[in-house]
């Protein structure tokens, strides 16, 4: 019974993952592509849930489907219909390269499945109740993968500082903006 349920959820999640992935690249209006990408990330989160990775699933929804995609939607709504102008087709070598890369990944996936399917995929991994819990993930982060964890945090810090500096720079060079501000201040009684 439980196995049937897992299969049913897996099939729904996997197919909605594929369908929303295709929808992301085939919509011409970016405001439809963004919700499709949210659907894609959400169905990935369901797949993570099936793999007993609750924390990763919640993090996926919170960070990617929530915070990051809000920025995408914000920018596309802000730009309106102009947002799709830079990607009207693109040069042919880019299309060719994209198809080539996608084909290479597909071949890689098939090869990996073929290599691993020799009896090893049917084994159920032995996982205990603590698997995928925040405690376990935190321990792994701060022991085995400490270097990667710290490097990532430094990269993120540099990105944050860089974006602040870029924002401050563009504000300083924007003289017309200053003029408008001073006029507004003067007009106020």
């Amino acid at each position, binding site marked *: 019974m439980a196995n049937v349920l897992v299969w049913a959820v897996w099939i729904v999640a996997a197919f909605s993952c594929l369908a929303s992935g295709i929808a992301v690249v085939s919509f011409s209006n970016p*405001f439809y592509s963004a*919700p499709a990408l*949210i659907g894609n990330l959400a169905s990935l989160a369901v797949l993570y849930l099936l793999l007993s990775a*609750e*924390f990763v699933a*919640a*993090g996926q*929804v*919170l960070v990617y*489907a*929530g*915070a990051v*995609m*809000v*920025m995408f*939607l*914000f920018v596309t*709504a*802000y730009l309106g219909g102009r947002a799709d102008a830079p990607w009207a087709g693109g040069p042919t070598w880019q299309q060719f390269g994209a198809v080539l890369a996608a084909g290479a990944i597909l071949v890689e996936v098939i090869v990996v499945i073929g290599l691993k399917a020799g009896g090893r995929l049917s084994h159920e991994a032995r996982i205990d109740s603590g698997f995928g*819990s*925040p405690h376990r993930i935190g321990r792994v982060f701060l022991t085995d993968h400490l270097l990667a964890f710290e490097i990532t945090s430094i990269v993120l810090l540099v990105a944050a500082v860089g974006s602040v500096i870029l924002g401050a720079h563009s504000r300083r060079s924007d003289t017309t903006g200053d003029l408008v501000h001073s006029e507004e201040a003067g007009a106020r009684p």
Partner: protein
Amino acid sequence: MSEPWWISVIKAGVIINLVLLTFAYTTLLERKLLARMQLRFGPNRAGPYGLLQPIADLIKLVRKESFFPTAAIDTPYILAPVVSAFTALAAFAVIPFGNGWNIWRYHVNGVVANVPISLILVFALGSIGIYGFIVGGWASESKYSLLGSMRTCAQLVSYEVSLALSVLGVVITAGSLSLVDIVHNQAHSLWYVVPQAVGFLVFLISGVAETSRAPFDLPEAEQELVAGYHTEYSGMRWGLFQMAEYVNMITLSGLAITLFLGGWHFPFAHGVDFLGPLWFFLKLLVLLFVFIWLRATLPRLRYDQLMSFGWKILLPVATLNALVTALVVVWA
């Protein structure tokens, strides 16, 4: 302790209805309290003391024609209020409201869904709920709606960071992300509002901003934007947006109670744990009163004040609070 699945389903139905009832009467409470604070009477025609006013409002909203701008983009326009209302209601599922009861042969948990990462789940649902506001404003094809949804988006994203950081102190102190564990940890010790007073203050302020309540109600500043992202909505679609806002307020109050105010515990009442929902509800009423009181007292912030307050004051304070808490927990 596990319970049969049909108990969970019944409980979910009961809780959803109770939350909706609380939402309906929060609107009445708000109108009454605001009126009293402004030396008026408030609604007092429908039923004794105006108590049937929310029911009358509901019947009016359901029967009202749902106007539809011709330029609106159908599917997102219709789905947006649904997404917002759904995520707002779903988030309440993980908030514990009692210790659990043994009824006949069955054990009934004091929470609809006891998941080990419930705190993250609440934030995840909250971040999905924002889409309803953005997509609704965009799909209306109206300048005011779009401006309102842009403001909503920028404000919610800014204050979500402080909100998440402010609860980090509680998570570090309790050592768990499960709301049930956090409540149990407060049973025989001080409520976390005392050691985490700064966190509580930051949580409350960013919570008011997250629910777009005054003085942070810029997304729907009626003097500038008509009504913000739901300008072009009417009838029950507008009602769903309104419901999402009030239910978010109730859920956020419930989260504040769970994290900082001892959940369903009450001082000196350890023998009567079965009364948990009553204590929870009383605390909820106090917090809702504070929300309404703030609205009656404080004027709206200017937009640049809102942003600089969120990023330059709340965020550093919340970060420092989390750091200091971590240091204290490690050394003590």
